[in-house]
């Protein structure tokens, strides 16, 4: 039974990007170590090439680490938003649904939204539930 791993697309993208970036940095670190293998048996030209590659790799690591910090900040803010959404939905879901059912006669769009939603999917997928919750909230605000 294969399930979804990440709670939503944004988080999935951000986590995958961050892990890939880290793996790339780790590979650069590995390159630094592996470059020095059998160093003494290399020709002067090869030794010079090793030195050049080392400088380039170190510069690349610095650039990637900067990128990594930005990606970490991005993930941190995305998770904060996601958890805040989950908290809000779990607190106000019943109230918003109840209100939407009451007000559906005032808005065709709202009625359409309530009739066309897949309730089973909403119970299984938190990202869909959050999306639907925000849609309902937007409609309810526009009616008032």
């Amino acid at each position, binding site marked *: 039974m294969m399930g979804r791993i990440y709670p939503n697309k944004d988080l999935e993208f951000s986590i995958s990007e961050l892990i890939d970036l880290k793996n790339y940095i780790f590979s650069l670190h590995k390159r630094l*170590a592996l470059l020095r293998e059998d160093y003494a048996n290399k020709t002067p030209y090869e030794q010079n090439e090793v030195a050049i590659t080392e400088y380039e790799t170190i510069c690349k690591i610095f650039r990637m680490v900067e990128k990594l910090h930005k990606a970490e900040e991005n993930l941190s803010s995305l998770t904060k938003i996601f958890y805040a959404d989950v908290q809000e939905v779990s607190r106000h879901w019943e109230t918003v649904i109840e209100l939407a059912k009451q007000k559906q006669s005032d808005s065709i769009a709202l009625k359409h939204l309530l009739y066309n939603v897949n309730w089973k999917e909403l119970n299984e997928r938190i990202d869909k539930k959050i999306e639907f919750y925000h849609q309902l909230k937007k409609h309810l605000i526009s009616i008032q």
Partner: protein
Amino acid sequence: MKITVCYLINADDISSIYSFECANYQVKEREQEFENTEIEYYKTLGGEEVDILVGVYPNVSKRVVDFFQDKAKEIIEIPLEYTPAQAYNILFRKCFNSFVCVLPTDVFLKPNWLSELSFFSENVDNCGFAGVPHTVLNCTYSPVVTKEFEGFLNVFLPANMTIKTDVPFLFNTKLLFTLGGLTEDTTMHGYEFYHYQLRAIYSGLVNFYISSTASVVIAKRQVNDDNAKKFAEQNVQLMRKQKDFYIAL
């Protein structure tokens, strides 16, 4: 090979649910050798068959506990006054599989993280704690001796020979018999796993980060102060003089 995963939830935070889901929990059907036999299911995490032990403090909400109800082999209630070290010791007493994995909350991983971790733990000779790295700063990429192959495996060895424990890590269950449990001395609060790793080092084991995959840690764990670290080091030195690293579990 089956692994016992210890998951301690000490705050009523929904992140414990979602970071667990990101660890790739699945229920799989076991391949049957014969036809018409009853279908058997098993639980996997990170691509490996697991038994999940969840420790929950009383302040954790019913919603979080309910989430783990069908996933965990056992949900163990931890008294509020217990420290994380005492809580982990309770969980460790129930570990009977080949390896023990400690999975912290707020960590995001690649789907096959536990397979990678168990590969290294199984193959590295004298393996102490093997962790999925969050960062490899102050680490050297070095070969370590393997058990079965006539060769080496490259891993990241930390400069101070101990790994950070805010990442998922794995160790052999035999350690619980040879070194016992975590110290429950509160003067070393926050450094209990550090203390354990030092004991492992003096027993001839190697702690390392695997080199094939990375982890993302969102919340950095706050540890109290350097005094606790110093106490832990002094205590291990004392144990070393007494030539006894065992702490009863």
